[in-house]
């Protein structure tokens, strides 16, 4: 049924190859440049480790499909705003599914035993995620980009396509909530140590 043999064709044989090659090179550059920050961003937005690949892939598919419309200067912005949307949606879906009850899923997250130092860090991260989980996603996004990725408020405004006033107020509220929550945790920890 193949009218032509499916040989391992040289690139010049494929009609779309130069274009595909350029597109692929561009997406690859985008991934290389922003992968780590995107990955952390998704994780701190509450996407679980085992889901990050899927979410990342969806983001890249959207980027690939819209490549021609993405200006070179707004690649990062496009990736982060898309990641924010896809991650928020994924989380909503997951949460509605979780109500059925699969706590086991969260328990499998870190199956390998780690050295002490790492465990310490993993514990800190778990605590951080617990604090972040109490925040609305909009606050969480602005907060993590500012505090963890150390972006400026102007960068965040551009990245998420928000007015700068919105970024400022979200950041302020997020920082207040974060501070209050961590202070509460700290007080609890102290109480436990003093009164064992």
């Amino acid at each position: 049924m193949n009218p032509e043999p499916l040989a391992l064709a040289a690139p010049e044989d494929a009609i779309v190859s130069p274009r595909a090659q350029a597109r692929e090179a561009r997406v690859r550059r985008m991934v290389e440049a922003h992968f780590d920050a995107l990955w952390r961003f998704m994780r701190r937005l509450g996407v679980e480790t085992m889901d990050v690949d899927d979410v990342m892939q969806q983001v890249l598919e959207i980027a690939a499909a819209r490549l021609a419309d993405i200006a070179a200067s707004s690649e990062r912005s496009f990736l982060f705003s898309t990641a924010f949307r896809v991650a928020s949606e994924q989380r909503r879906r997951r949460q509605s599914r979780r109500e059925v009850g699969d706590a086991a899923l969260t328990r499998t997250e870190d199956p390998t035993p780690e050295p002490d130092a790492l465990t310490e860090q993993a514990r800190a991260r778990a605590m951080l995620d617990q604090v972040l989980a109490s925040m609305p996603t909009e606050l969480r996004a602005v907060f993590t980009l500012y505090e963890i990725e150390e972006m400026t408020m102007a960068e965040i405004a551009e990245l998420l396509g928000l007015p700068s006033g919105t970024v400022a107020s979200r950041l302020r509220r997020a920082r207040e909530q974060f501070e209050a929550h961590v202070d509460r945790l700290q007080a609890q920890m102290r109480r436990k140590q003093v009164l064992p």
Partner: protein
Amino acid sequence: MTEPVRFIGSKGLKAELLASAKADRAPEGSRRRALVAAAAAVAASTKAATATATLGTLARVAAWKWFAMGAVGLGTVVAAKAVIAPRATTVEVSTAPSAGPKAPHAKRRVASPIRPRAFDAIPADPALPLPVSPPPEPAANESAIAPVPPAAKPEPPAIKPPTPAVAARATAEPAPARAAGPSTSGSRLAAEITAIDQMKSALAGGNAADALRRVDAYRAAFPTGTLAAEATALRVEALARAGRRDEARAELARLRAGHPESPLLENLGQIVGE
């Protein structure tokens, strides 16, 4: 804007928690998987955009992808195969209407169960035959992108007349089985991307009316679609092209209100003549 002093620069538990996140790294292989997925996504969207593609071309694209991925050292050959092998058969299935229906269906049956989970979201090309064949009826398009549950019969293997409608139903068949799985979002997204691509080709081909019909079909099929904002942006452009400026502006205003993501809004103001 005055920037508050970051907690991460201070001392104590707040800084410690935030520092732990800064040190967070993607697990081994995650970046490579992303690169492979990116390559596959580009190949898929390139294909969708190549309106005049023939079966031969598609097969060669698939073969070339295989070659290219090995050549650039994106990953092991095994990894490339895992992505490309299912895709190559999907390509054959998609073009079945023009190329003889029997063998590809058998192949698809074999291929789909082994599709690796991480790549579930690769477009299953449910509507790929559309750009390949002459301009389709909107109705055929809708049935192709909607995750329609099939008639209850268990895949009669050898009686498919090569019509797009049947091809669409056959392609949509795995949907019920995946209904609860994580791949649902992936295949839905693939269908959404295809729909968006078709709107763009219609616009690029100067057929604003067709683009508008496709936006309507998309909205009917995906009321809460992931790419709803993209569809709205394309609708703004299509309305403007159709000379319906006021409607275009109104639609743009809605887009700005609901989705202030700058990348989509970039050129639209100019397009509607603001």
